[in-house]
């Protein structure tokens, strides 16, 4: 229990530190939000008026605590660029990115588990060798290149989907998911390849342990041994790796959103930074930070329950 309390304490401190960093970072960078908003029509008077209107003329500390206070109360401010509340702007984008991430994660599981187990079962056969070489190659192709190849082959030539024609969830549920299939697959492929390798390796190693030989000697078939004994032990490193993978997929979705023209959170983040839309940028980074740190903490804590051999300081 003390351990969990300590973890929560550090969690809060980390988030607090990140909030300061994020806030300060955007105070010192070149490119004031007002010059960006007024563009070539900027005049000193207009800039001054807009700065006052946005409250940018107040001291940094006042602004920081004002922002933090509002943030904690769930008030994320109003986007400079879109004149709408940030939570309204973000809720739609979050759903898209979350769907993409989860779909991709699901694909990683669906691809890697059957294949990983199958390859472990037939380890060192020619099938295994060929597959592992392929696996290594797939692992080395960056997701955005896969995405471009998919767009070309499945989009433009085979016409499985219409490139750049993102479908709104509200308009067409099936169409929405269908459009996300290839982007999700582009992110999932290299990640799945890594999991396959890890899972296969982990299982092959377990298979050489003494208890496996004992299990064989009891007359269990190879599949029974795999299922009944090896899987559970082999899962320990894999589960922690999956947490890392989930976080990586979130990062990967930013790039893939660009390739497939998906109006998700990643794209909003990039354009908001460019547009110096501070309320939006700060909120998105805080959300990502919260998600990333939470996933890591869950992985840390769940470790303890999956594998009792691991003890904490």
């Amino acid at each position, binding site marked *: 229990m003390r351990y969990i309390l300590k973890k929560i304490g550090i969690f809060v401190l980390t988030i607090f530190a990140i909030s300061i960093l994020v806030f300060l970072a955007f105070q010192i960078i*070149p*490119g*004031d939000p007002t*010059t*960006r*908003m*007024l*563009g*070539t*029509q*900027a*005049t*000193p*008077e*207009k800039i001054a*008026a807009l700065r006052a209107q946005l409250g940018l003329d107040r001291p940094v500390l006042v602004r920081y605590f004002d922002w933090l206070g509002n943030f904690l109360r769930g008030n994320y401010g109003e*986007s400079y*660029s*879109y*004149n*709408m509340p940030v939570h309204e*702007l973000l809720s*739609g*984008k979050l759903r898209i990115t979350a769907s993409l991430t989860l779909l991709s994660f699901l694909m990683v599981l669906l691809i890697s588990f059957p294949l990983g187990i199958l390859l472990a079962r037939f380890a060192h056969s020619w099938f295994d060798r060929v597959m592992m070489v392929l696996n290594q190659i797939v692992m080395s192709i960056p997701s955005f290149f896969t995405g471009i190849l998919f*767009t070309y082959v499945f*989009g*433009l030539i085979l016409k499985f989907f*219409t*490139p*750049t*024609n*993102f479908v*709104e969830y509200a308009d067409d549920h099936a169409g929405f998911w269908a459009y996300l299939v290839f982007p999700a697959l582009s992110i999932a492929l290299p990640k799945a390849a890594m999991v396959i390798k890890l899972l296969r390796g982990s299982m092959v190693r377990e298979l050489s342990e003494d208890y496996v030989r004992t299990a064989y000697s009891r007359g269990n078939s190879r599949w029974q041994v795999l299922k009944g004994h090896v899987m559970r032990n082999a899962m320990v490193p894999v589960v922690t790796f999956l947490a890392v993978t989930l976080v990586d997929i979130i990062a990967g979705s930013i790039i893939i959103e*660009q*390739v497939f*023209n998906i*109006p998700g959170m990643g*794209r*909003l983040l990039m*354009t908001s930074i*460019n*547009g*110096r*839309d501070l309320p939006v940028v700060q909120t998105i980074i805080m959300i990502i930070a919260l998600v990333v740190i939470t996933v890591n903490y869950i992985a840390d804590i769940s470790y303890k329950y999956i594998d009792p051999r691991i003890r904490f300081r």
Partner: protein
Amino acid sequence: MRKTRKITALLLAVLMLTAALGGCTGGKSAETASPSASAAVSAAPVQGGELTVGIAQDLDDSIDPHKMVSAGTREVLFNVFEGLLKPDTAGEMQPAVASDCKINDTGDVFTFTLRDGVKFHNGNPVTTKDVIYSLKRAAGLDTGTPLINGFDEVKSVEAPDDKTVVVTLKKPDIEFKAMFTAAIIPDGNDPTKETIGTGPFKFASRSPQQNVVLEKFDGYWGTPAHVDKVTYKIIDNAETLVMSLKSGSVNLVAHLTSAQVKELGSDFTVVDGTMNLVQALYLNNKVAPFDNVKVRQALCYAIDRQNIMDMLSNGKGAAVGSSMYPNFKKYYRADLADVYKPDVEKAKSLLAEAGYPNGFTMDVTVPSNYQPHVDTAAVIAEQFKKIGVTVNIKNVDWGTWLSEVYSGRNYQSTVIGVDAASLTARAMLERFVSTSTSNFTNFSDPEYDKLYAEAAAATDEAKQVELYKQLEEILTKDAANVYIQDMCDYVAMGQGVQGYEFYPLYVMDMSKVYFTNKTAA
């Protein structure tokens, strides 16, 4: 094959002319990439249909027509909002919300008669109250801060009766007429909360970074739009614009490059015009070595405009020699484009005279989100190598460009296209007055300042035009900047879409676009 295409193009050009009631600006060519002549045969407009237009920029400055600053926003909102006057395809001011505009002899009082039957998108008729609110808001008469630059010249806006609006300026300015394209919105309206105008399309919805949806306004006073709905799809990745046309996810995309058009292949109707801007290597006239006129002239001799256009747009585009683009016929001086012909030897000797016999190294700051400018900078860098000038290209994002280059004037040179915010010569030429806040090139010439003041105050239009032309000549002779071109603007339309027309402004008029068959819609 070639012959058929030519005939088709001719047919199409004729059809377009008739359909546009003679409103086509000259010098344009219409070309269909489709080899079949059937497109021309069935080119009669069919009413209705939903059009999807790909745009590269989101409307992320403001959808408030008085506060919008980017050209990308202007070209969309052109369909939603109208002013008392509205430009036509020839660049002439035509009455819109007003039915008549009179200027007094001293050039400082404008009298407008409101048109009967003009309705806002919410169904309410436009009254003098709305007009007064809109103009006062734009001029900042109540707040002290004008929302539209230059509108602070307005002294008062009054309505002597319920059909007439009188605008009085602080000083005579006949060119101010073009400013009355400023949007008329309902009294007390905040356009960011409720977007209401009087244009042929009404604002339906928007989803940031995704789309902006306009619907046909049935109560429009003028020629109604052909299509029922226009969805602007935001595709901010220039590389995927072509793909979206090919895949059919959009019907129309403007501002394409020749390479992108080539990529499209057949099945698309492609028309080309110019972008109505002056692309140049703008120089910071205050920093060495560009404070030396010989250096500036040397750079002008060193560039090969035709080569730039060949590289970027297969030779299309219009070379310019001063801060005025060809479509602005009233003020444009074609002879200035030929003052500096590519001449490496001359450039070298000028550099030597200026004290740089071995050349020098210069920074070119370019906004990385405008591919044509980035590409142009790359070509220029190659050309300048010949005279020993090493170019170091700095890519910055648009926000940084605005603050460092445009407002901060902390740069050596930049490649950018400067367009006209309003259809006035002033919009192009005022920025070179030494005291102008928008003089980002730090150009300074007492004679220019004097002539400009004279021109701005002139009440005789012919004389004013003459003065503006002289100003252009000064910019050329002084080699204020290395002027390049008015860039070629390709508009590609999917099958069954036609009717796109070019304006001498950076706008896209969707009310004239139509489908030629129902199935495509």
